[in-house]
């Protein structure tokens, strides 16, 4: 187990190369426990592969991934402490499963094949539903939820195992614009309240602003990594987007508007 001073997640010159996945090359970064990392990059830049490497689902061809003190095959042993919110496709509205039942699935790895749900397990499920504001819909069909609520459901499923690390893969990609900011706020709130080491993947830089701790810009390889000031400066963003960026202020918040991505 890691002590408080050790890194929660650490990549040392990690290269992943499979023909099935978008590869990443020579990726290095480190996160302290409780830090929030915004991972930005265009589609097909290896963001999902990076998260899968944290989960130990893809193994590096070279370099090493260390998660909560575990490395290589040991990562499977700490996977229960990692909550994962995969990129969402809309659920089949007729799929026969209730919201509560879908959240319970997050406990399956801990329950084993025949393990019964204990009172403590039920408490965790209730707490996860409360945390994302879905308790009132617990007995509805999961497929009948709106896009934003389905996303909350997936976050609740990741929270139910009370993880120390939370991975989110474009949690707003299948959500309408009006709901996006509420998802972003929910994630920030969970990070702050629970002290979760959080890796938040997005292709929209504005979702990690105002920036919390660190930002990683990836396009197959690390293009920029560091504090918010370092990465989200005009110079870095313009070189990364290959075009003019405009900073806009509104209600005390800063937004980035990208001029022409194809320039």
């Amino acid at each position, binding site marked *: 187990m890691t002590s408080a001073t050790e890194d929660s997640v650490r990549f040392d010159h990690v290269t992943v190369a499979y023909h099935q996945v978008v590869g990443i090359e020579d990726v290095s970064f480190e996160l302290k426990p409780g830090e929030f990392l915004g991972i930005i990059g265009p589609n097909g830049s290896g963001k999902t592969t990076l998260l899968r490497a944290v989960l130990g689902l893809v193994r590096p061809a070279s370099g090493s991934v260390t998660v909560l003190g575990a490395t290589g095959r040991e990562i499977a042993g700490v996977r229960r402490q990692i909550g994962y919110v995969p990129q969402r496709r809309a659920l089949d509205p007729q799929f026969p499963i209730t919201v509560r039942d879908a959240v319970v*699935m997050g406990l399956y790895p801990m329950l084993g*094949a025949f393990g019964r749900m204990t009172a403590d397990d039920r408490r965790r499920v209730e707490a996860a539903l409360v945390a994302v504001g879905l308790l009132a819909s617990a007995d509805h069909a999961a497929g009948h939820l709106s896009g934003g609520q389905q996303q909350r459901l997936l976050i609740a499923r990741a929270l139910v195992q009370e993880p120390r690390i939370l991975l989110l893969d474009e949690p707003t990609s299948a959500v309408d614009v009006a709901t996006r900011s509420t998802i972003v706020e929910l994630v920030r709130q969970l990070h702050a309240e629970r002290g979760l080491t959080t890796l938040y993947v997005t292709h929209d830089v504005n979702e990690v602003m105002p920036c919390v701790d660190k930002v990683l810009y990836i396009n197959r390889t690390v293009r920029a990594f560091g504090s918010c000031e370092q990465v989200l400066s005009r110079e870095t963003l313009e070189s990364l987007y290959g075009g003019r960026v405009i900073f806009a202020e509104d209600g005390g918040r800063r937004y980035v508007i990208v001029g022409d991505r194809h320039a």
Partner: protein
Amino acid sequence: MLEFLHYGFMQRALLSSVIVGTTCSCIGVFVVLRGMAFAGSGLAHAAFGGVALGFLLAVNPLFAAVLFCLGTAGLIQVASRKAQMRMDAAIGVFFAFAMALGVLFIGLMRRYDARVYGYLFGNVLGVTAGNLVLMAALGLVVIGTLGLLYRQLKFLTFDEEMAEASGLPTGALAALLLGLLALTVVVSLKTVGIILVEALLVTPAATAYQLTHRYGMMFVLSWITGVVSCVAGLVISYALGIPSGAAIVIVATAFFALAALFSPKRRKCKVCGRESLADTV
């Protein structure tokens, strides 16, 4: 009125109806939820090759069908993995191949044996005690495995990506389901036959799908539909003197039509659909 129950062939037919109805309707939940309907039909046709081989070599056609169906399921699995193509294409390749072997085996037989064709449409009244033992054993394997892996298969079916991320061997579980489907096909051959088994793999579960939002309840409703269809079909076929496979499928389809017409799921949706459940933000 129930005097027909005194006949041994009728008792065996009833028992086999219950076994077939139970096995098909339970694996059918996965066929419907995971979109394996073509796999079911493909494996059923592959059984034809096994049955023909059984007659050619004068061995039990059901044993030969077990080997043929499992072999075809394995080939489908390997080909879709290694050749990296969609599973439906792999099914198309190998089910046609197994059928072709069946035609070849029949051509190689010295004498024409009409019993081969009995397996195409099934005859529940012709089930022997030996058939019943094999059917019950295979049915137990299928139902027992589904029960043992209830949670794992539920996770796989609802969210394969997440199941994999939490450490489940999703590839092996999917292959296992295909294998169980192959065994289910063999269980059903004598009763409903190669052509009609697809109906029992899909229709009871599709009926249940219309009626419930709960996963466990889907098995219960599918099971009731499957067993009632098989038993009612058998009784109707006996009373009216019509082919049993056809009677069973027609009854099951009638249940499906009723469920689809009066589905409480969709009626409920119209009233309390997305609007009332919309985000509370």
